[in-house]
């Protein structure tokens, strides 16, 4: 079975986000970018399936600007076998919307015929939480979202989902789209030899036009604003001081 893992290049979660002066979005020029953390978890899970003998090949796919090849190299260094980059934008500020991504992924899936797609539940940049679901609809495949546990057994997958107020376990028929949540696993970090090997693994480059998908935006960003600034904290020297301060503030 092939496992396909879509990975998105997003602003690194450690970066202090700055809103662009025209309010059209956040500034991404010369800012550190990384793989979407949920996609890292998906990638890790796919590699674990391969290590457990339940998958034969892990294919990472990224859709966006050319620089997303760095994100794919990260997936390859973690252990993916090969990668497909679909260039769909020149400007790092252009976000490809979930529907366009899902359409491109569908086209890739038609070619590759994976038995499972493991995706992040959402990307940390725009928190859409939509691509996996749209893809399932376009393909007519089963879907299981917010996975915190995954077991593949023949032509079925048992998935534990993190739903409001608890956990839900469902059984879905393969092929399936599974979107993963934070607690599914802890992704590995790449070793130096694997980073070196990743440089030699195949990375195919395509364009959105190759798949005949129109990626022009359907949504218009009206405004982007900073969240309200957090008030500065205070460092206290001792427990007594802390207790005194808390009393003063009426907190205890």
């Amino acid at each position, binding site marked *: 079975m092939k496992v396909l893992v879509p990975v998105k290049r997003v602003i690194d979660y*450690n970066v202090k986000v700055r809103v662009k002066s025209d309010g059209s979005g956040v500034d991404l020029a010369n800012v550190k970018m*990384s793989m979407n953390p949920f996609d890292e978890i998906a990638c890790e899970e796919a590699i674990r399936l391969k290590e457990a003998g339940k998958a034969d090949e892990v294919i990472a796919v990224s859709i966006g600007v050319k620089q997303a090849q760095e994100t794919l190299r*990260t997936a390859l260094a973690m252990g993916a076998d090969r990668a497909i980059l679909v260039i769909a934008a020149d400007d790092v500020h252009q976000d490809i919307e979930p529907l366009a991504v899902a359409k491109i992924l569908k086209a890739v899936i038609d070619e590759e015929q994976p038995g499972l797609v493991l995706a992040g539940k959402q990307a940390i940049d725009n928190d859409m939480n939509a691509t996996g679901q749209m893809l399932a609809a376009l393909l007519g495949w089963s879907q299981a979202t917010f996975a915190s546990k995954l077991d593949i057994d023949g032509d079925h997958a048992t998935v534990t989902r993190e739903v409001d107020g608890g956990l839900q376990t469902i059984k879905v028929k393969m092929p399936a789209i599974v979107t993963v949540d934070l607690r599914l696993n802890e992704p590995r970090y790449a*070793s*130096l*030899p694997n980073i070196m090997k990743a440089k030699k693994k195949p990375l195919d480059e395509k364009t959105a036009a190759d798949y005949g998908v129109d990626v022009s935006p359907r949504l218009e960003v009206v405004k982007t604003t900073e969240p309200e600034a957090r008030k*500065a904290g*205070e460092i206290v020297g001792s427990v007594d001081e802390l207790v005194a301060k808390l009393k003063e503030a009426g907190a205890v």
Partner: protein
Amino acid sequence: MIQTTQGAAHDDIRDAVRALCAEFPPEYHRKIDEDRAYPEAFVDALTKGGWMAALIPEEYGGSGLGLTEASVIMEEINRAGGNSGACHGQMYNMNTLVRHGSEEQRQRYLPKIASGELRLQSMGVTEPTTGTDTTKIKTTAVRKGDRYVINGQKVWISRVQHSDLMILLARTTPLADVKKKSEGLSIFLVDVKDAMAKGMDVKPIRNMVNHETNELFFDNLEIPAENLIGEEGQGFKYILTGLNAERALIAAECIGDGYWFIDKVTAYAGERQVFGRPIGQNQGVQFPIAEAFIEVEAANLMRYEACRLFDEGQPCGAQANMAKYLAAKASWEAANACIQFHGGFGFASEYDVERKFRETRLYQVAPISTNLILSYVAEHMLGLPRSF
């Protein structure tokens, strides 16, 4: 984390080393320092991740990278709050063996070093009575059949208790019998455990920075002649390969420290409120931090230049020395600003500032002191008369 001018060229390495380092939080390094212990688990993790084999060519099981990449690894360790001093020895020794060792020696040692079975972390140069005046060293190696017999004494030889192999500099032809004082010196690969059983005594030196460092005493230690690296009498030339690498790597470590201090103090100065506003709002606080940052950035450029020349196999003594000078100075400025603007808290161990402050101070003295770099530049770059 502050944005720096370095390009994205090594982001893959940085990200992976950062992720590994993140598994060893400040508490880990603090505890190691308090216990005066060796960060065994950390060095093991680096070894398992292949990081300590970065410089070993691929055909011997390493990753075949250059000094530039090795320096990025060291920088990231220090930037993450660790101390590369525990493990940089393998990086600076490696090219001495790779470039000057025989094929037989490379075959014999490199794959085992790459796999982590052996560590080559020690380099024995400094002696108590000659200090920086390296060509005057008194430790001798005398050929006797298929062996060399070593006698003498070394001081400040680091990581010996956590290394399997050491590169040792000794005199093979008496100073009086050579034309140039840099001739007649040779380097050897010493099997540390074997040597400790046969005439090498190791006496640890308690020191300011939790550096595992020692006095060594050689009393008729016999080592196989095949452990000579390169040609007899040419060792000084070979050891320079290691020393230049060491200077560039130390520069990178200081740069890592410098960024750590600046990140730390910037965050603190932005948060700490006295007199009703963040202390970082005062120019008296801002300027020294900004100045240190500028100096770290400038040192960084010279460090890349030194590494580039080294990796191209070109002479790089001047650049490696200047990079080390600039970086050690910059990290010290950054350390000073960091401890100063933490006020009293800079002295509390749990802030890690005082530990890093001590650690980075070393690099004004070792592996080469600032004065000696200045006299090198005066003599070799400016053509002024030698002062000593």
